[in-house]
């Protein structure tokens, strides 16, 4: 349904050209969920925005970037080739691919009611207006678990609680009837209990509607609950991807191992936390070779710092980009 190949994004900035996404490839089948995980600045959100062509004018896609999407009618669309003003792009946004964001407060405009913004999406993608659109909006609000939706629909975003707003945002995205939902850290800004409710809701809705989902989070624990497959990003590259269980049980990349070790565990309170050593380099100072090598305890001298590791297929749908798996030996 969606396949991304060699996606690269560069930004022109005052400090020169930065590359927040470099050579990213993944595929997503209908009804499946892909988790994109990584620290802040790893290029997760930029990847998501590139899929919707929402990047600012200072961004350019790499020449070999391909984003192929098969729409409801079975038509294949090259997202990277759509013109910014094309009708096809506007149909894609919302109607084919819905998106929800980290900040539920900021994703709604404060000066229009929730209902106004939901019925707008319904009018654009379902061709319903007036009462029919309103009825559908109320139905969607009820579906995401908002109590007395016929009253909430006329309220302004600032009168709703954070969890309620994120539910409303999900209702908005789903009311346009997308086949793929991109959720960019949808639960990060919420309390833990609300977070669990919203995750539960999203999983349920996804089952009901048969949607595919790209779930972005920095939290491997959250990803493990919602996704079947996971891609671990570091400095704009997918360093490892595969089925979620296999990847968590036997991480192949040192960075993935570090991420898993860094998760605080309630059953081991005596031990110290194990953060991944070092810091993410600034995007304008991307290390040569494997981007992770300055922080990697297992880096191979003479190799990791000079050569970019190619993807290695480990079988079972697992792919890793690491010289430890390419059969390279340290050059002393």
């Amino acid at each position, binding site marked *: 349904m969606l396949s991304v190949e060699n996606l690269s994004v560069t930004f022109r900035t005052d400090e020169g050209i930065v590359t927040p996404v470099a050579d990213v490839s993944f595929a997503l089948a209908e009804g499946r969920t892909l988790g994109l995980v990584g620290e802040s600045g790893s290029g997760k959100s930029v990847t998501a925005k590139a899929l919707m062509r*929402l990047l600012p004018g200072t961004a350019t896609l790499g020449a070999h970037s391909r984003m192929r999407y098969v729409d409801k009618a079975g038509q294949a669309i090259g997202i990277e080739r759509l013109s910014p003003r094309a009708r096809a792009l506007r149909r894609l*946004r919302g109607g084919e691919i819905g998106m929800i964001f980290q900040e539920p407060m900021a994703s709604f405009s404060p000066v*229009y009611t929730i209902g106004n913004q939901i019925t707008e999406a319904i009018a654009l993608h379902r061709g319903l207006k007036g009462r029919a659109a309103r009825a559908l909006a109320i139905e969607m609000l009820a579906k995401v678990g908002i109590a007395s939706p016929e009253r909430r629909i006329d309220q302004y975003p600032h009168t709703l609680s954070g969890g309620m707003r994120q539910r409303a945002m999900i209702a908005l995205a789903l009311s346009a009837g997308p086949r793929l939902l991109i959720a960019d850290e949808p639960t990060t800004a919420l309390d833990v209990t609300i977070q669990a409710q919203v995750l539960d809701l999203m999983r349920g809705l996804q089952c009901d509607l048969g949607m595919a989902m790209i779930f972005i989070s920095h939290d491997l624990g959250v990803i493990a609950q919602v996704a079947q497959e996971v891609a671990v990003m570091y400095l704009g590259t997918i360093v490892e991807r595969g089925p979620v269980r296999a990847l968590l049980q036997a991480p192949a990349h040192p960075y993935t191992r570090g991420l898993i070790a860094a998760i605080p565990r309630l059953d081991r309170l005596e031990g110290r936390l194990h953060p991944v050593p070092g810091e993410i380099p600034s995007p304008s100072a991307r290390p040569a070779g494997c981007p992770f090598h300055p922080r990697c305890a297992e880096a191979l001298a003479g190799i990791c710092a000079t050569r970019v590791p190619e993807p290695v297929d480990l079988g079972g749908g697992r792919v890793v980009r690491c010289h430890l798996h390419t059969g390279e030996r340290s050059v002393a």
Partner: protein
Amino acid sequence: MLRFLAGRAVGMAVTLVLVSVMVFAIMELPPGDYADRYAFRKYSGTGVTITEADVAAIRHTLGLDRPAPLRYLDWVGGIVLHGDFGKAYAFETSVNAIIGQKVWLTLGLLFVTLVLTYAVSIPIGIYAAVRRGTATDYGLTVLSYLGLALPNFLLALVLLYFANRWFGASVGGLFGQAYEKAPWSAAKLWDLVKHLWLPALVLAWSAMAYQIQTVRATMSDELGKLSVIAARARGLPEMRLLLKYPARLALNPVVSTIGFDVNRIFSELPIVAAVLGLTELGDLLLKSFLDLDMNVAGAILLLLTVVIVGMNFVSDLLLAWLDPRIRLGG
């Protein structure tokens, strides 16, 4: 909403009372009063010698020897109850007769100026923000800085010169000679419109430049907001998106500074009036100060401040209408 309005209305009333006290104090400031003037007017050139006692007698018959607070109440009472602004010194007539239709001309000029300001600055500000960083944007920015830097009276002179060269006819004043004293008619109104654009343009100039900058800055902020990206992500056509989401919020700072713009326009009115030969309140205010005709000056000052305070109230109302967070007290 009602609480908000009530609060603003009370604030407005208090402001008006304070303003009237201040204006009255200003009227009291210059030495000499109506009794001095009256005596001077009546007896100068007649050879009659006037003593302090004569003036005091006049003062007493006119009630001007009463304490200031009483006279203030008289003055305010006359205005509020009868719309009577008292007597004009220099003209031996009432202030109302002098101000008369000039009030409406001034309000008309103010209205046209405001409409012109916003009709020009809002679209240009939005356009510059959307085209941010392009040559068009820089061009517009430079022009608007020029607008801020150029003194109004200079602009008035320059425009006067060119208008005179290109349109030939006299462009000063608010009416052509044929219509100056004529009764109101469609032709006179058209004549007014033909004359009004120039002073309106001069008065709008700096407000326009300022508001272009404001709109551009807020619009640029709004364009980067997540709610705008979210609206784009649901497939809204770009033009509708711009107008519905960021442009709507970019209006807020403009609407909330309407009162300041009115203030700015009034401050510039006397000088622009002098240069362009306008015969409305600005010109009269200048003259009445020169003549120390404090009743006229006071009446004009009071009227102008009432308009400013009133427009501030209007801007509050508009803001509450535009932004539900204010309306609903969020």
